[in-house]
């Protein structure tokens, strides 16, 4: 399942499939088949919906549907999850079976891959066992084999006496074999993976610099105009403060810092997904997950977490064993989602790459960011192992993973889909959350309890605890208030610092760093902030998603506590080690 507005955020909390017929005569058609047979291509071809599909098994874990018209009738096409069987071994299979059995489709179309027809027919047989109206749709591979396959098909279709439709698809060939020889080899498999990750970060960071600066300048210019406007209408100063210095500045931070990197990172990542590289990542990393008594497909859900942890949690449905699924859900938060990347990138560029100049700066930045991600993956493995030894005891279950043939990425489509579905959606969510957060901070900064504002009061209250782990009360408060969305942690922190001190124009990271240093930041604070942003509670959307996916308050609370405790522990150990060694 790809990351899209339908698969992230609040929409995923209401995915119960409700099919609305325009007229009672509308026909409902279920579309099923093995994973990676080109089901979604058929779906998109018929409905024109252009639903984005990733090239890895299990991307459709819920039923999607689209409508098309043919000869004056409406057809409602329901895309059910790709499965090998209908025996309800996993959630996907249950969803698929339930729809064919109880969704009362008029017809069920099963798409099969001509290159592994025999295996595919198993599902056809199982479908025929539970419903009588079945259409067989065969995906053909290439011209050379077409004749032979058509002959076989005719025989088959006679035997099964069902309709056969043909479309085009690609089989695993020598080309795929050669690429896999490199991408999964002992020598190059893991290094190529890390290098790819680094290159993506490097392109993202260096490409985002200039547009980010331009956006910040533009927003700053607009701020001047807004201030003039407020003076012109003789608005009271507090109104200008809350609307312009509070809300507007938070918004401009969120947009100028987040938009450019996302607009680069998402298409690049979608490109890898589209090529079919992600199953190779799962293949390369499976051995680690096996040693942690977890499922290799957890690597896939981890990758989805890069975009959005809530989407990653839903993606865990592709894991059959409920024990391993819980492990994947609880540990998903150890990979930083897109809301947390800006925190990491900003902190690294301000505190850790200063002694490098020019292009080396962004290369070094990408290197450190990659190291942080690898730390997150190591924590995922470590915590998975810990869970397998304690509250989720058990042996690794058997798993099978399909490595689909590589496919030519549809570049234009990738750019459009990843910008529309992912970037704008994630940004939109951040903006929606940033407005009330800006308001709350402003109120907290201006509501007084005795001598100090509510903000200072709360920050001071949190300070002793925060100091233990190398942060300060304001930082911890920013993370707490950032519970609705991680994107707003830094803006909240800035507003919190500025509300107690002087207000500063924020055009670039140099000025931001000056504010932070004025508030007592050292490189140890920066390190703790990075560790804590990598490891703390999941955001509100993710928590709600976990509650829904596990159907259990207990596991939701555990999923909240595990990364939080890990973060506190890691920060505490690191900060105190540094103190003991005497680096500060």
């Amino acid at each position: 399942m790809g990351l899209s507005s339908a698969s992230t955020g609040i929409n995923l909390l209401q995915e119960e499939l409700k099919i609305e017929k325009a007229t009672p005569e509308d026909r409902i058609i279920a579309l099923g088949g093995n994973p990676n047979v080109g089901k979604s291509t058929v779906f998109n071809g018929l409905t024109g919906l252009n639903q984005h599909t990733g090239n890895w098994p299990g991307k459709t874990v819920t039923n999607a549907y689209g409508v098309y018209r043919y000869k004056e009738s409406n057809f409602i096409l329901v895309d059910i999850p790709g499965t090998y069987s209908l025996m309800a071994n996993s959630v996907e299979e249950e969803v698929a079976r339930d729809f064919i059995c109880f969704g009362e489709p008029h017809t069920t179309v099963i798409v099969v891959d001509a290159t592994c027809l025999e295996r595919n027919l198993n599902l056809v047989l199982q479908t025929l066992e539970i419903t009588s109206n079945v259409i067989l749709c065969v995906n053909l591979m290439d011209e050379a084999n077409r004749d032979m396959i058509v002959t076989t098909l005719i025989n088959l279709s006679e035997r099964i006496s069902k309709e056969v439709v043909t479309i085009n698809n690609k089989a695993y060939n020598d080309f795929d074999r050669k690429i896999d020889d490199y991408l999964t080899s002992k020598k190059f498999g893991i290094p190529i993976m890390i290098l790819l990750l680094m290159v993506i970060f490097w392109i993202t960071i260096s490409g985002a610099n200039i547009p980010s600066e331009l956006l910040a300048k533009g927003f700053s210019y607009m701020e001047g105009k807004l201030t003039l406007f407020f003076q012109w209408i003789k608005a009271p100063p507090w109104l200008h403060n809350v609307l312009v210095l509070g809300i507007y500045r938070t918004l401009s931070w969120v947009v100028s810092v987040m938009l450019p990197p996302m607009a680069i990172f998402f298409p690049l990542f979608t490109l890898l997904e589209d090529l079919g590289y992600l199953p190779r990542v799962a293949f390369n990393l499976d051995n680690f997950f096996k040693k942690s008594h977890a499922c290799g497909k957890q690597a896939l859900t981890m990758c989805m977490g890069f975009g959005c942890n809530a989407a990653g949690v839903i993606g865990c449905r592709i894991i059959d064993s409920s024990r391993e699924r819980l492990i994947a859900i609880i540990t998903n938060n150890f990979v930083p989602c897109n809301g947390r990347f800006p925190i990491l990138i900003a902190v690294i560029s301000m505190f850790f790459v200063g002694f490098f100049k020019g292009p080396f700066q962004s290369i070094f930045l990408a290197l450190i960011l990659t190291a942080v991600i690898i730390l997150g993956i190591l924590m995922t493995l470590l915590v998975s192992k810990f869970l397998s030894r304690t509250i989720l005891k058990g042996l690794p279950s058997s798993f099978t993973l399909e490595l689909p043939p590589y496919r030519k990425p549809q570049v234009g489509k990738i750019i459009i889909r990843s910008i529309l579905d992912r970037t704008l959606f994630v940004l939109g969510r951040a903006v929606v959350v940033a407005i009330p957060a800006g308001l709350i901070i402003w109120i907290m900064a201006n509501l007084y309890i005795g001598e100090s504002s509510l903000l200072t009061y709360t920050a001071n209250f949190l300070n002793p605890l925060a100091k233990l782990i190398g942060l300060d009360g304001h930082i911890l408060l920013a993370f707490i208030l950032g519970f609705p969305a991680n994107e707003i942690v830094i803006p909240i922190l800035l507003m919190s610092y500025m509300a107690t001190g002087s207000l500063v124009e924020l055009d670039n990271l140099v000025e931001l760093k000056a504010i932070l240093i004025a508030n007592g930041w050292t490189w140890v604070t920066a390190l703790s902030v990075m560790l804590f942003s990598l490891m703390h509670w999941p955001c509100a959307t993710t928590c709600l998603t976990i509650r829904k996916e596990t159907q259990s308050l207990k596991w939701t609370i555990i999923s909240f506590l595990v990364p939080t405790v890990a973060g506190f522990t890691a920060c505490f150990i690191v900060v105190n080690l540094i103190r003991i060694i005497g680096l500060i």
Partner: protein
Amino acid sequence: MEDKYIPLSSLSIGEKARVIKLTSDGLMRRRLLDLGLIKNTVVEALHKSPFGDPVAYLIRGAVIALRSEVASMILIEKLHVEGE
């Protein structure tokens, strides 16, 4: 050479074999049958992952990665390449 029934996990990369029987039962057996691993199915070991396990096999046109525990439940008979 006399062919013995060996587990799929001991097949070397590039070698082909014919499935003789599955020694697993229950859910795992069902899974393997779903993949098309029935008697006489030809499988080929394609790639080892960087740490040697799992291994990717070509099974009925699809490439499927199996962990060694699973592959050891599939008994096979090696197919010899001509000229050997």
